[in-house]
Every structure is written in structure tokens, then in C-alpha cells.
């Protein structure tokens, strides 16, 4: 599964994307955020306040309760500021 990071989430994690195998107990988006957060200091800093992190699965916005299923691509990013 590909993970993609944008804006300050990308900066704090220190990479724009990575391929990752998730452990079986990571079922929902919320589980993913909790699991990533303990990987190292960069992730911990990026995901310090998981409630503000926006998530897209296969390029579509989802909320944190969403099951990951067989997602190809999950992106984590701050609230958007385009327009």
C-alpha cells in the first residue's frame, strides 16, 4: 500500500510517499494514524494531533472511522487551504 503525505505532514515525516505493509490489526484510518504515530519522532510530530489530520483513500476524502480495506493509496494531509 502506498502512503502519501502533503504539506506539513510531509515535512515532519520527512518524505512525500512510501510503500508500507500494514499489520493486520490496523483496520480503520484511526488505527493507521495510531500505528504510524509510534514509528518514530517525525511521525509522532506530524500526527501529534491526529484529529486535525485529513485522510484520502484512493484520492477520495474519508473520515477516521473509514475501514482501510484493500486501499491502493492512502494520503495524509493538513486541512486544505487552496482556492
Amino acid at each position, binding site marked *: 500500500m502506498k502512503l502519501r503525505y502533503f*504539506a506539513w505532514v510531509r515535512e515532519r515525516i520527512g518524505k512525500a510517499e512510501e510503500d508500507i505493509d500494514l499489520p493486520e490489526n490496523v483496520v480503520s484510518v484511526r488505527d493507521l494514524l495510531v500505528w504510524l504515530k509510534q514509528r518514530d519522532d517525525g511521525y509522532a510530530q506530524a500526527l501529534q494531533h491526529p484529529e486535525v489530520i485529513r485522510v484520502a483513500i484512493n*484520492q477520495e476524502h474519508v473520515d477516521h472511522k473509514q475501514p482501510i480495506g484493500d486501499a491502493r493509496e492512502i494520503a495524509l*494531509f493538513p*486541512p486544505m487551504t*487552496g*482556492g
Partner: protein
Amino acid sequence: MTVPVRQIEPLIRVQSDDFDLSVETARLTDGRTDIGAVVAFSGLCRDEGGSLSALELEHYPGMAEVEIARIAGQAIDRWPLQGLSVIHRYGKIKPGENIVLVVAASAHRHAAFEAASFMMDFLKTRAPFWKQEHDAEGRPQGWVEAKAEDDAAQSRWSER
């Protein structure tokens, strides 16, 4: 038997290049005699009283286009539009330069106004773009924070 409604196809572009307001408006109206109203919204980079030398817009390639298309589809479902174009730029944009363009064409003015305003409120809160400020010396600074008022502006469309 229901007659299928012929839906217009919005023009959606995510690009680093600038755009031309007249060209985009003419693209919707040229050769047509059924359009009564065109609302063109241009969003520009401000210098925030001189403290800012540029905005650097990061985006999520692929999803940006898809998400704008989703929002445009909602506008087309909601108002009787005869044309809808959205161009959103990314990369480094200097004060006074264009960031985003929305052009909505309709037989009647209220549909055009509402659709363009709706597009902007949803682009602000749903389209995957992020702005980083560069200070007067050109150094990257913080990321622009999302505003509660933009969320409020978006949610007013579901109250109707």
C-alpha cells in the same frame, strides 16, 4: 419515460501556468446565444501588507483534478448551468498573480452567481491544495492555516 437531462461537461485544469480570464470566458460563450449571465471569479495572491513575497501552492496531483470534478458535478446538478470552468494553479505564485479561476455561465444571473460562489467555498475546503508563505526575503515560512470561516461558508450550502 423520463427524458435524460443533458449535463454539461465542466472544464477542469490544474496547472502551474497562468490563465486568461477573457479566453476562458469566451470559451464558454463564443457562438452561443442562450447564455444570459457569466460570473467569473479570480482569486489572487495578496502580499499581506508587504510581509509576503510569494505563496507556494502544493497540491495532490490526480486527486486535485478528481476532487474539483466532484465539486463541479455537484454544482451542475444543483443549478441550471450552460458552462462551468475551473482552473487552479500550483507552484510559486507572487502577490498580484492569479491563483484560481471559476467561470459559471447560465441563462440567469442567480444560478451563475450561486454556482461560482459554491465552487469557491468548496474549493477552499475540499480541494487538496496547501499554501506555504514565503517571507519578504523569499524564505519559506509557515503553512497557511485553514479558517473556521471557510468551513462555515461551505456548510451554509447544506442548510438550504
